[in-house]
């Protein structure tokens, strides 16, 4: 609290109130030096490729090939190979898209909103979270591109991008799906920018370390991307400002993207979709699943690379608390949907919600409900928040639940719409299942490459929140 005014009245009030002095949690344990941080983080990249990495990488490539096979079969045979047919014409493609986009949101939240809120604990986890964001947006983007069937038309003139098609007609800019194209491409590219700007100083460190070791090739590669970074204070001023701006822009983006994704449903007239609660509900759900995934990725990484001093129990505790808040908000949204359906007194809407809970797909609803509403409630307990194996298990359940949330929303509403004559039951085909399964491989391949070749922990940012970095000596 170095900025508290020390005038007489403040002192008098402080003496009267006698506020408790709560020590700031330590962000780097064991009082590690800056050199230790550099050595620890760069050591991962400079060391020999561990055997487990090759094993995981091979498995991930194997899984990813399922997507490749599914992709080629789809393009060769047409979208009929997927399981959706009247009346459920939208199913796993959009479910998986929303699922992966949702996961992405935690990375932007950690790097943007927590940066603006000056939550210094974000420093050691934001690189990983942003990497997760970029890779899951990549996985998400596959599905809209694939579901048009003739994939080349997604990019060339044009179902998705505003290029006039063969009849010189432009895309319909009133369509929520067209809004999605812009939202998701913005999300992907701004996330990459954010990630890259944060990486530049650390790439400079790696460049010089490899140069000193005599590894000219790697030094040149890292040097190319470091753009000639030299840690100049005149550059840091611009770098910090750009980073802060990106955080502000990212905050706007994190709320707007999932809002626009929810418009895909909310702007339609289907009962169960046509609700104003969708935008905040989707944003909370997205952040919920994203934080669960951050924990799923961080906990093993921390153990494998022995990053206990950099990713402390305090970090995990904070992540669990945010997961709890978001999970509870999602639970609140589930209940609120029912209240609105009842209060709205629309028979179609009422039927849809009763049907969701006790109808054809009740099994999916109850998987969703127990995974998303009950699971996070364990995080109320300090004992749970410090039991990392248990946290890991819970995060897996959360993501299963969040996948089922999208399944429930999309499939139950379409399978039972206004007329009983257009009712049906949807089951996925093997092609869909394999394509989705493969995206976990795609994600893992990208993530494994990231932890092998890039600094997993932002060294410069972590150094700046250590006690040694404080020039005024006020926080020590």
């Amino acid at each position, binding site marked *: 609290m170095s900025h508290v005014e020390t005038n007489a009245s403040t002192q008098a009030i402080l003496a009267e109130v006698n506020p408790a002095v709560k020590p700031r949690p330590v962000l780097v344990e064991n009082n590690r030096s800056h050199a230790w941080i550099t050595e620890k983080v760069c050591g991962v990249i400079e060391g020999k490729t561990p055997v487990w990495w090759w094993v995981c990488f091979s498995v991930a490539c194997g899984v990813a090939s399922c997507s490749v096979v599914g992709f080629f079969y789809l393009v060769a045979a047409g979208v009929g190979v997927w399981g959706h047919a009247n009346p459920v014409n939208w199913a796993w493609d959009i479910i998986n898209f929303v699922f992966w986009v949702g996961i992405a949101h935690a990375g932007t939240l950690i790097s943007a909103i927590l940066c603006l809120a000056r939550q210094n604990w974000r420093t050691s986890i934001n690189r990983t979270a942003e990497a997760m964001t970029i890779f899951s947006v990549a996985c998400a983007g596959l599905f809209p591109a694939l579901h048009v069937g003739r994939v080349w038309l997604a990019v060339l003139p044009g179902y998705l991008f505003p290029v006039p098609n063969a009849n010189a007609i432009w895309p319909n800019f009133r369509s929520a799906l067209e809004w999605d194209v812009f939202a998701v*491409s913005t999300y992907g590219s701004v996330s990459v920018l954010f990630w890259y*700007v944060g990486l530049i100083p650390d790439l400079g460190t790696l460049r010089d370390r490899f140069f000193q070791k005599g590894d000219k090739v790697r030094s040149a590669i890292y040097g190319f991307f470091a753009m000639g970074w030299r840690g100049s204070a005149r550059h840091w001023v611009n770098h910090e400002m750009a980073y802060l701006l*990106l955080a502000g822009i990212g905050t706007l983006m994190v709320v707007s993207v999932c809002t626009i994704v929810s418009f895909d449903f909310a702007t339609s007239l289907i009962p169960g979709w046509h609700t104003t609660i969708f935008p905040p509900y989707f944003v909370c759900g997205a952040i919920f699943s994203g934080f669960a995934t951050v924990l799923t990725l961080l906990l093993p990484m921390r153990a494998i690379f022995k990053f206990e001093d950099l990713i402390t129990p305090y970090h995990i505790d904070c992540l669990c608390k945010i997961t709890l808040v978001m999970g509870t908000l999602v639970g609140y949204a589930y209940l609120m949907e029912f209240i609105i359906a009842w209060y709205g007194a629309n028979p179609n809407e009422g039927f849809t919600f009763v049907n969701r809970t006790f109808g054809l797909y009740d099994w999916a609803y109850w998987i969703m409900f127990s995974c998303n509403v009950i699971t996070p409630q364990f995080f109320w307990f300090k004992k749970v928040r410090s039991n990392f194996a248990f946290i890991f298990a819970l995060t897996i359940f959360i993501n299963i639940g969040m996948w089922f949330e999208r399944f429930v929303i999309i499939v139950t509403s379409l399978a039972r719409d206004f007329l009983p004559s257009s009712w049906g039951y949807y089951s996925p085909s093997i092609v869909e299942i394999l394509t989705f399964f493969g995206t976990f491989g795609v994600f893992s391949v990208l993530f494994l490459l990231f932890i092998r070749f890039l600094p997993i922990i932002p060294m410069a940012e972590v150094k700046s929140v250590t006690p040694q970095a404080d020039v005024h000596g006020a926080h020590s």
Partner: protein
Amino acid sequence: MSEQSHGLIATFNTASGVYHAAQNVRDAGYKHWDCITPFPVHGLDKAMGLKRSLVPVFSLFGGIAGATAAMAMIFYTGAVDYKLIVGGKPFFSPIPAVPITVEAGIFCSAFGAVVGMFILCRFPMLYHPVLKSDRINAALDDKFLIVIEARDPKFNLAQTKALLEKAGGLDVKELEA
């Protein structure tokens, strides 16, 4: 000064060391000088007397340009180039154009911020004397440097060296250009 020299370079072991030394160099009236630090030292910009960064200007104009372009594109495609009646609605109305306008604004202001940073830092920088120094490796790890350039009007080898040493600078040496 010989033309071979870029200036003087001094090492500091702590962040507060370089912070207080920077105040001394600023007060001595130098203009062409720099601090090299492994992380953004809080308050060092003020200690050096640096102005506020101009990156927000780039970002603002990027955002305005992006949002305007998006709205204009939707207007041109719907109301000028190919008029198509969809659901009996007007050819152009600004409300359904808002999401795309917002996203394009976000996209271009983010690019503006990054491009602005690159321009102001003069990236990509292919060569700089400091990068050739054998101290750069330590400076991007845990050491701090101050470099005072020879082209500064106040630069005087003996006096500047004395200033840096008095401010706590270690191993004050000339830096090859």
